[in-house]
């Protein structure tokens, strides 16, 4: 195998596939990057067995200046190889492979490193019973950013580390919950006429990696099979394993009525929450308290060890019964960030029941963050 290429174009492709590569893996060869050269294109693959990313550089891509001399393949230790490429002296580079030995030249520099046979690299999964649909990248980013905060990071209940996607025609409902909070986003897909009916749980970690690849994309073709989802992003293909099992029924968790309602600019509350967290983070409890009394809303952060902060909030409106509620400020902060500083409605039923944040004036639960309070003794 031998080719030469523009180094910056190659680095971009290396960075893309490296997102899937982990140094901690049970399959040693997955710490490597797979490099395959055909008569027409160069294909790079990275994988951690949960997600795989494949990216192609075509000979016709003028910016990449790919010159194919001899097709072939190799796998090379990803971090090591990337570091070499990033430090090469010239604008272009040549990679030539003899057996499992790779030689990298650029300007006056010449590296020779050992790799492994490309045939030892696992095959990407085959897919049966595929359903496909086309989604605008902007809508996909919207879904991911509105829901990823509530996905669990704890493996004790693996199913909760996923984003639950219920697709029905052009309608998508995405839900995440770590059992302390819940995010829901419902969208109607635009510019498409999908006939998909599917119910899948995709690891939220995968979605995070996908989000960074969506930048600059217009539309994404998605293929769904029983245990795999594939996202076609032009020259890059993103594979994700799907989580197996039943996602908890979440509709019944969303309150249908409220006794106290507060409307406030997300940015105003966010600022106050950040200030109160300065104290709660110094305490073992990480709890702040919100009191709504006769139209006056006060946020209080106390740490037995450090001190206390109290702040009266500027609100747009307060209605309903007086209330005193304690919660984890980190959850509310994460939820508020999703609203990009806009006004939100916060609805409470009691100090021991979950409360919801929705865009001000909207009642359809299409964009909803739900948070459980903390019970203090």
């Amino acid at each position, binding site marked *: 195998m031998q080719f030469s290429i523009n180094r910056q174009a190659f680095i971009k492709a290396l960075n893309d596939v490296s997102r899937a590569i982990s140094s901690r893996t049970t399959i040693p060869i997955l710490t490597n990057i797979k490099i395959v050269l055909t008569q027409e294109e160069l294909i790079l693959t990275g994988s951690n067995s949960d997600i795989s990313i494949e990216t192609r550089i075509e000979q016709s891509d003028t910016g990449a200046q790919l010159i194919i001399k001899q097709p072939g393949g190799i796998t090379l230790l990803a971090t090591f190889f990337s570091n070499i490429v990033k430090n090469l002296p010239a604008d272009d580079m040549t990679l030539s492979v003899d057996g499992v030995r790779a030689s990298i030249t650029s300007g006056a520099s010449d590296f020779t490193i050992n790799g492994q046979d490309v045939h030892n690299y696992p095959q990407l999964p085959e897919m049966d019973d595929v359903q496909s649909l086309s989604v605008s990248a902007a809508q996909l980013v919207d879904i991911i950013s509105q829901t990823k905060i509530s996905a669990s990071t704890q493996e004790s209940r693996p199913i909760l580390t996923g984003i639950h996607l219920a697709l029905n025609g052009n309608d998508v409902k995405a839900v995440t919950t770590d*059992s302390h909070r819940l995010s829901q986003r419902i969208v109607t897909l635009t510019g498409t006429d999908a006939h998909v009916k599917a119910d899948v749980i995709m690891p939220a970690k995968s979605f995070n990696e996908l989000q960074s690849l969506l930048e600059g994309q217009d539309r994404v073709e998605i293929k769904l099979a029983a245990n795999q989802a594939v996202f076609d992003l032009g020259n890059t293909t993103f594979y994700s394993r799907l989580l197996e099992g039943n996602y908890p029924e979440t509709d019944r968790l969303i309150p249908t009525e409220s006794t106290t309602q507060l409307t406030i600019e997300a940015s105003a509350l966010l600022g106050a929450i950040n200030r109160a967290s300065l104290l709660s983070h110094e305490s073992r409890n990480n709890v702040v308290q919100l009191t709504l009394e006769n139209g006056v809303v006060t946020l209080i952060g106390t740490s037995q060890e450090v001190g206390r902060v109290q702040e009266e909030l500027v609100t747009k409106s307060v209605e309903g019964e007086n209330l005193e509620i304690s919660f984890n400020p980190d959850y509310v902060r994460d939820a508020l960030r999703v609203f990009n500083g806009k006004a939100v409605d916060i609805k409470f039923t009691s100090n021991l029941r979950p409360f919801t944040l929705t865009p001000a004036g909207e009642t359809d639960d299409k964009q909803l963050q739900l948070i459980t309070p903390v019970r203090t003794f």
Partner: protein
Amino acid sequence: MITNDTRKILHVDLDAFYAQIEMRDNPKLRHKVLIIARDPEETGGRGVVATANYAARKLGVHSAMSASEAKNLAPDAVFLSPNFTKYRAVSDQIHNIFDAFTKKVEPVALDEAYLDVSDLNLSGSMLAARIRHEILRVTGLTSSIGISHNKLLAKLGSEYNKPNGVTVITTQNMLTFLDELTIGDFRGVGKKTHEKFKRLQIENGSDLRKMSYDELRSQFGKVGEHLYYQARGVHFGEVQWQRQRQSIAKEETYDHFLHSERDIQYEFKKLAAAMIEALKKHHRVGRTLNIKVRDDNFNTMTRAITRELPWPLSEELLTENAQNIFEDLMAPPFSVRLLGMSMSNLQSNSFEEMTLF
């Protein structure tokens, strides 16, 4: 019989604990007859009195009595179902106060404990005053304390001046105090023994002390022996402070030794999850994270990280720290047969994150 027991033991007992908490939290109950038990009208007469306030006790209501019997004695009483989650939380606050004075605490119940304060320089009555004041300040509740050189007398003392009182029993006033106790006040005297004593015309401590060791032993066996000593204020039982849980630990032995860091991380995560669950169950947090590693040659290594504030109950954080300790202890290639994770320097946790399902 002379003993030179120089210990300093407190018995602290909250006054009508559950009832007092409910009266604290609901001022409307303060002047009512209050019985902590499910209303017999709701349960069809079943249920037992957990406790009753002093107004109810005046009417003859006492704990462990059937709720319907209590209703007969106090027909106007307010019945309230017990909220043990709340009582446990208040109990944790109180035990935290004890912990601040001494680690030698033997919890007897949610509302009752023995403290061995022999090592402290303050007098027993000064300590009792401070502890009672601190309990009142933090929880708003009153308590009674007995002070003496052994557990028996301390316990009798706290009962003597209830509610909201302090009793000091010294070697000087001890016998006067014991003489006045009715026979039923002594420990181990149940219904049957009580009747037997009545037949023998033994009615109080003074009568009891007139019986010889052999007499008591032949009549009452083991109980008799104890009563002989009790009548003389002798009791050598230690405050069982070490019985309190000092740490919460989880460990696992692996039949297939672990060789990869990924496996180690995975196993630490499982241990952390199990440990957090146990800590949550006991409403505890801890300041010291301990990690134990045993290799295939049975070399056992332990390391601990102590923080100023308790560790947050975060699986991620604990796993990450365990992993860091592990990397300090072992370099690849390694072969691990046992991993352990425990939390010590425990204290109680006063909040609970609620869950959706």
